[in-house]
């Protein structure tokens, strides 16, 4: 499926600079740099769902927003179709926004409380001149509402009159009404009840089929990612540590971080076969990332070289790659722990 990449990200880096206060600057303190996303490269094929997984604060949402230039990337390239998104002028970028959209995590914060559903969902049509007057806009919005499972009669209501799941449907309608090709789904179900999660995931899959969409699906929930992705990328402290087809990565994870994530998924079959690989400590501060392999502070397999040199990304299977010094020599961490 990677033969026809729709989105190609090359060496994307996003650095935030916290400028110190005037007093601190006078005392000679230097501005702090945080590398939220560091040298990330990947591509997403047309019609594919790439799952992006990682714990809170690893930079996965920043990556999604940097691709859409909601947060301007510090360096690197984002190519979409045959356009270089990172080099587009403001009017070109505005036109491009019609083709790439985002669905947000929090359905309460992502809808303007003072605007009606009709205004919210109709906004993309207005902005890109896709409507012929108000009546035409309302008709198109009503059709879109119907597609996402809301009633056309709810068009004049305000966001606070809907439940979380319904609000997320409004957010989806807004993202899809301009007929985009690519959607960044930024944890679209994380804030919802489990029963509602399933409905929204089904809706996203149906819409993908109907509108031939491509998703970058960001989540911290392995079961969700495993259910709907074609390929998975695992992120740790702003870097992709492992990437490959979903069956391959989830069944035979090669990076110790992915293995620890997999072992943290609770199982209900009661066989107790899953051995827990517990990580020591918290995610290190991205203000002061560890040297060498960024995972070494928490890795059960870390040796000297991990502290000194950054591992290169190696191919470990068909379309499956991982970045770890100990890929070649070690047994699976899970098997090792079982002995």
């Amino acid at each position, binding site marked *: 499926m990677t033969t026809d990449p729709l989105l190609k990200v090359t060496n994307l880096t996003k650095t935030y600079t916290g400028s110190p206060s005037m007093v601190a600057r006078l005392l000679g303190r230097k501005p702090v740099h945080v590398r939220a996303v560091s040298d990330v490269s990947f591509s997403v094929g047309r019609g594919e769902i790439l799952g992006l997984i990682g714990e809170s604060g690893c930079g996965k949402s920043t990556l999604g*927003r940097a691709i*859409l230039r*909601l947060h301007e990337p510090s360096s690197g390239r984002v190519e979409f179709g045959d356009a270089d998104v990172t080099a587009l002028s403001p009017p070109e*970028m*505005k*036109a491009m*926004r*019609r083709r790439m*959209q*985002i669905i*947000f*995590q*929090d359905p309460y*914060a*992502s*809808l*303007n*409380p*003072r*605007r*009606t559903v009709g205004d919210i969902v109709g*906004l*993309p049509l207005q*902005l*890109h001149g896709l409507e012929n007057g108000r009546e035409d806009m309302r008709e198109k919005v009503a059709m879109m509402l119907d597609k996402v499972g809301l009633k056309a*009669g*709810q*068009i*004049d*209501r*305000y966001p606070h*009159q809907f439940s979380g799941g319904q609000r997320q449907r409004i*957010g989806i309608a*807004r993202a899809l009404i*301009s007929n985009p090709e690519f959607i960044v789904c930024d944890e679209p179900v994380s804030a919802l009840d489990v029963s509602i999660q399933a409905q929204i995931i089904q809706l996203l899959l149906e819409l993908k089929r109907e509108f031939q969409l491509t998703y970058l699906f960001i989540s911290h929930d392995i079961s969700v990612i495993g259910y709907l992705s074609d390929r998975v990328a695992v992120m740790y402290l702003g870097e992709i540590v492992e990437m490959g087809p979903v069956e391959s990565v989830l069944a035979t994870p090669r990076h110790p971080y992915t293995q620890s994530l997999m072992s943290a998924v609770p199982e209900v079959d009661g066989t107790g076969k899953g051995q827990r690989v517990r990580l020591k400590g918290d995610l290190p501060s991205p203000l002061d990332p560890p040297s060498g392999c960024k995972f070494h502070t928490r890795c059960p397999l870390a040796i000297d070289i991990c502290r000194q040199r950054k591992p290169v990304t190696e191919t470990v299977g068909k379309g499956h790659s991982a970045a770890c010094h100990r890929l070649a020599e070690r047994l699976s961490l899970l098997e090792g722990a079982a002995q």
Partner: protein
Amino acid sequence: MSVIETNATVAAESLFRRNMAAFMENRLAFGSAIVVVLFVFMAIFAPWIAPNDPYNTNLFFRLQPPVWMDGGEWAYPLGADALGRCILSRIIYGARVSIFIGAAVILVATTVGILAGLAAGYLRGWVDVVISRLVDILLGFPYLIFAIGLMAMMGPGLGNIILALAYKEWVIPCRVVRGETLVTRELEYVEAARALGASSKHIMLREILPNILSPVIVVATIRMAHVIILEASLSFLGLGVQPPTASWGAMVADGRAFILESWWVSTFPGVAILLLVLAINVASQGLRDAFDPRFTE
């Protein structure tokens, strides 16, 4: 379709109605609001309410006391000033000046403050630096002295008073709007609008502004009381509206010379200032409690 539309209107109004209900339950604030409305009516219908022509001088009635004192009569209920003009009529006409200037200054200042605050808070960067420094500098000047200086430069007159007061007044709504904008711009619905390709103008005016309007309206009403006092102060100092136009501040000043023997000349316009300003303050605090949930415990 009609059923749906009715539903929507009901829902849209429900929040406003709930706030209004909370406001009316606060009896002191509601009573004050009625007082303010009465003053406004008085200003609008002054020619029909006033018992006498406020500009008609009659030296036979010079410094005539109010009706309940010896020598008072119903023709001049609150007495007459040094030129024999009816004090009650002048107070009624003076409400026009106070309320008109208060409203005009707040209107100009709030409009400018909203635009500047939105630009500073949303665009950040050098726009924010320039506007915020300007605000800091203006805040450094004592308000009245600043206004006196401007009036001395521009000369007296209704338009000049409004300008002189609005020159500095806009920093108050500006700071409120900037602070609210800084918070609101980080919300996901603003990011969503950016992701859809909305312009900065659209985001500032259509996405952010409607959501920060309640605190701005509350601040505007509170500040209106201050502006009325400032106008009275300028008129008291002779830098405001020029005689013979009736202005409460100027009336207080006129009576200074006779304060011991004819206290009513200064006192009644002073009471009018006190009543209106107090009523606006109490009503606006009630508004704040009802409309801005952050201030309610």
